[in-house]
């Protein structure tokens, strides 16, 4: 086979991969329960499997509005993360790093504003300004910030790539397409920062070697990952059902 090299994942990203798998498994179980469950108040996605502190449940709408609401959740998450990165910059943040984070933060704020302003009153009404908990991230540690940024971007790229086929409206599909390639650009640059002068920006853990395909994640895979950072409880049961 081709001699492709790719840097091993860092311990922290390997750990997050393990927890991805764990929540994915939990989500699969939860999904099964959701199907069997008819009461709305029990039908929420609670990926950790543990009871959350009392909080608002955010029900995502169905169909295109639901997919857009799903995207809006992810953009809120990303924007909030980068706002944190620059609210408390890690020690000795270089001017190049500062410029990079400022650009990416700007893009995510803009994406968030687009979904809030333009994508139907129904979506914004269904998804309020979410509250986030980034306590698992060490914002004083450059490597940890980059690793988490890379993970958020990877999730975002996979989410858009996996959700595109569910969008009925061609205009919305194009809009999602305009955004996903920018998320991919972010991801590519972050990988280059982690592993300079290598093929890590699109190596085999990111792009399949035999077909050249970038990541694609189903919404049921992505939601539990996002949920870990969101205090409100996301209820995607109706959305998921509407996509089936």
């Amino acid at each position, binding site marked *: 086979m081709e001699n492709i090299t790719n840097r091993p994942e860092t311990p922290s990203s390997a750990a997050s991969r393990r927890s991805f798998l764990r929540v994915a498994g939990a989500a699969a179980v939860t999904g099964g329960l959701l199907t069997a469950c008819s009461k709305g108040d029990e039908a929420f996605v609670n990926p950790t499997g543990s009871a959350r502190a009392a909080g608002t449940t955010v029900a995502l709408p169905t169909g295109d509005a639901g997919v857009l609401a799903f995207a809006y959740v992810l953009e809120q998450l990303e924007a909030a993360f980068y706002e944190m990165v620059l609210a408390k910059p890690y020690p000795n943040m270089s001017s190049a790093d500062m410029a990079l984070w400022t650009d990416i933060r*700007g893009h995510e704020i803009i994406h968030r504003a687009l979904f809030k302003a333009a994508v139907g009153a129904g979506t914004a009404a269904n998804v309020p300004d979410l509250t986030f908990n980034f306590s698992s991230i060490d914002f004083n540690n450059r490597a940890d910030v980059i690793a988490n940024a890379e993970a958020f971007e990877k999730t975002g*790229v996979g989410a858009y790539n996996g959700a595109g086929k569910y969008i009925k409206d061609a205009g919305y599909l194009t*809009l999602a397409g*305009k955004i*996903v390639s920018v998320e991919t650009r972010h991801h590519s640059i972050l990988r280059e920062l982690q592993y300079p002068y290598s093929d890590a*920006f699109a190596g085999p853990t990111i792009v399949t070697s035999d077909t050249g395909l970038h990541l694609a994640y189903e919404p049921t895979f992505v939601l539990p990952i996002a949920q870990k950072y969101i205090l409100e409880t996301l209820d995607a049961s109706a959305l998921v059902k509407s996509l089936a």
Partner: protein
Amino acid sequence: MNLQNLFSEIEKVDGEIFDRLAHVSRRGLFSSLTKKTIAAAAPAIMASALTKSYGQSSSLPQGVKDVLNFALALEYLEFNFYNYGRNLSMIPVNYRPAFELIRQHEEVHVRLLKTVLGADAIPMPKFDFSAKGTFTDTFTNFATFSAIAQTFEDTGVRAYKGQAGNLQAAPAILQVALQIHATEAAHAANVRYMRGQKGWITGGTAALQGLPSVVDASYKGEENTVQAGVDLAAALAGDSRITPAMVMQAFDEPLDKPTILGIVAPFFA
């Protein structure tokens, strides 16, 4: 068949295409594929997607086939470009892993699209990487090579994006196209970065990307700040963290097929 259609479309924007094609052996051009064994290893994902959706490629809707052949033409172009540049000493050692990976991706994209299209796949055209004399040192000067690479990748992103709506009838294929689209975007950002550019596109001219104006058409429209009817630059004007340039960067704009064909026509021999 499809190749004819494709070149008819190129002809609309490049009247000389058939003259230039006359230099290519008709037999070589149109029957080369039938003489070769099509890559045996059918990528499992596409095979299964096709079986589920259509049974076999011959029942793919014509509109989907057209998109896939359009994509194949672009992938042939990219693959041949990187394959010719492969191992040339002008590529700095630091950047060889990236270019080798990109070359491999374009190669498997070609194989994937040919597998899906089967007998409907267009054969590989011949290429002119001087773009009819515009570039005189494509494979001897890394600055030129990487500039063309950046343009191809940024243009490829726009080309796939412009076709997404035409694949909605085939959800499995739409997803694969989106995944290829993302791969091209990952390439684009990396090549831009190694050239000292931002990974994202600012504004609608080649000069803003550190490129000669001859490739302006690849960037025209990227200055757009209006999305879904909202002028986001205006809407966020009060936010000191946001600049109009960021609004341009935050969205990659699609290009339609005739525009893309006009851009790549000079590279077809």
